[in-house]
């Protein structure tokens, strides 16, 4: 190891493994939210567990473990957080949320069709001339399979 690298190791960045550090912090945050969410739950009464005992136990242990992950992220080197792409996560999630919003008012067929197209937009490789007919065929397949073969109790069309 050269002199410069050694210097970076000592006086280098405060957080040496941001990946673990922020990961651990997030887990601690989740544990705290759970603590807050469990604030009204009764604890143990004598020897019998209350509904709040196990949630608080697990949340406490998670806070400790998350804290340990964060502390290790401070002292030991490792990878950076890296880049978060936008298009993929946003559009895939949008497709799922759109489906959830549409399935009630619009029925199975239209919701499926639109969700497939929104999802397809998540990839730069999508070719629309191919994606649209594919979405139509897949919608037909899913409708037949889930509505008629599986017998899912959901209207197919907005008017049905």
């Amino acid at each position, binding site marked *: *190891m050269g002199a410069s690298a*050694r210097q970076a*190791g000592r006086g280098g960045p405060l957080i040496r493994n941001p*990946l*673990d550090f922020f*990961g651990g912090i*997030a887990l601690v945050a*989740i*544990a705290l939210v*759970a603590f807050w*969410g*469990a604030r009204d739950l*009764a604890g143990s009464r004598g*020897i019998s*567990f*209350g*509904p709040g005992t*196990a*949630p608080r136990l*697990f949340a406490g*242990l*998670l806070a400790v*473990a*998350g804290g340990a*992950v964060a502390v*290790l992220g401070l002292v*030991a*080197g490792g990878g950076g957080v890296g880049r978060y792409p936008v298009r*993929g*996560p946003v559009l*895939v*999630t949008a*497709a*799922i949320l759109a*489906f*959830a919003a549409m*399935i009630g008012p619009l029925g199975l067929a239209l*919701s*499926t069709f639109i*969700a*497939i*197209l929104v*999802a*397809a937009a*998540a*990839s730069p*490789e999508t*070719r629309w001339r191919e*994606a649209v007919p*594919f979405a139509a065929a*897949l*919608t037909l397949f*899913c409708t037949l*399979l*889930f509505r008629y073969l*599986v*017998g*899912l*109790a*959901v209207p197919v069309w907005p008017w049905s």
Partner: protein
Amino acid sequence: MPDLLTNLGLGFAVALSPINVALCLTGVLVGTLVGVLPGIGPVASIAMLLPLTFGLPPTGALIMLAGIYYGAQYGGSTTSILVNIPGEASSVVTTLDGFQMARNGRAGAALAIAAIGSFAAGTLSTALVAALGAPLTAIALLFGSPEYFSLMVLGLAFAVVLARGNVVKAVAVILLGLLLSMVGTDPQTGVPRLAFGMPELFDGVGFVVIAMGVFGFADIIRNLEAPRHQQAIVQGRISGLMPTAKDLKGSAGAIARGSVIGSLLGILPGGGAVISSFAAYTLEKRIARDPSRFGAGAIEGVAAPESANNAAAQTSFIPLLTLGIPGNPVMALMIGAMTIQGIIPGPQVMTKQPELFWGLIASMWIGNLLLVVINLPLVGIWVKLLRVPYRLMFPAIVAFCCIGAYSINNSPFDVVLAGLFGLFGYWLVKHDFEPAPMMLGYILGPLMEESLRRAMLISRGDVSVFVTRPVSAGLLALALLLLVVALLPMVRRRRQQVFVE
């Protein structure tokens, strides 16, 4: 022994009914398909297809789901050999020698050995499941709450040891899973917990919903990050499916060793098929007279991991069927399927519903036979399917998961939750947290709370009950030992880092 034969006879009678054979066939075909297609693993696909089995009778539904699972293990090897892409994580090591064999013009032999190895392993592990089923169930019935609790702690310790990378992070995600499992109504008092006032959460977060999010949606988001490069598929007709006598002789030992390793590791929670294929490959390489052949098309390098992953897929049913404790996310989905069908998993299944228990076991052997018989002729079709580009496949998976998540309770809220868990799962993977141990924690959470609660009641609040009862103490000691062993290399590494500085 005669009991075992009677039981297996009953099992085969159930499994060989035309409807169950048809369901088994459907399962292994769909499983192979899923295994062949890269980018969708067994957990996501079983979660996705679970709603399709709602209308089936319980035995048939479980037979089909089991078929999907071990079919996927087998299908994964096909892509590993032909295109150097593992269809499943459990087939990663098969690419090393399988693809080299294919490049040397021996794709047929590699595929055949994978099939034969899988079948041999399936036979051995099915026999093991059948043989261990009754005695383990008898032991399970003797277990009290403290033993159950300690057993689950041991299971989680195994999951930590078998997880990749940082031990502390593995422990943390397990605890996260335990905490998540607390969302919903407390079974004892009927009080909603951690629902944050949302009535939709009073029933808890469905396991299928989380599995779809964390394994289905999150994988898609991650796959979209990396641009897809079209892989070179082995061109030309695949000929010479029959392995030569030399191949068979060379791989017989590897198949036997792989089957044993897989069967043993499959029983352990947290590991299963993936870890056992790695272990089997490593062993073969270590004991080989000429280790340099590995990576250049050694037939043992295909035979051992393929036997091991199939054996493990099979024996991972043992803890589920005998103790009611699922060892991995796939088994948790099987529990979900059982619960939906009105079956309470656990030792009582074998005594109260022998036709289901033994029928499922017998169907595994039949399924393995079907895999060998149908798959070799179908290789051509699987290769064609591989040409379906990911840009078409992933919107289809999104649609399927959406409809599947919705269909469980006819609830749009479940779809939203699955989507959110998709994002969360993506974040976990980005931060090098493994989702599988989290799922194990999530499955075991309610079982652990229940047994802890009962143990405290029978011991009158004395925590020492876990160490004064010998079986429980032994299980906990083993768990502690495992954790120490897992932590040691980490500590040593840190010391070295300090020394370097």
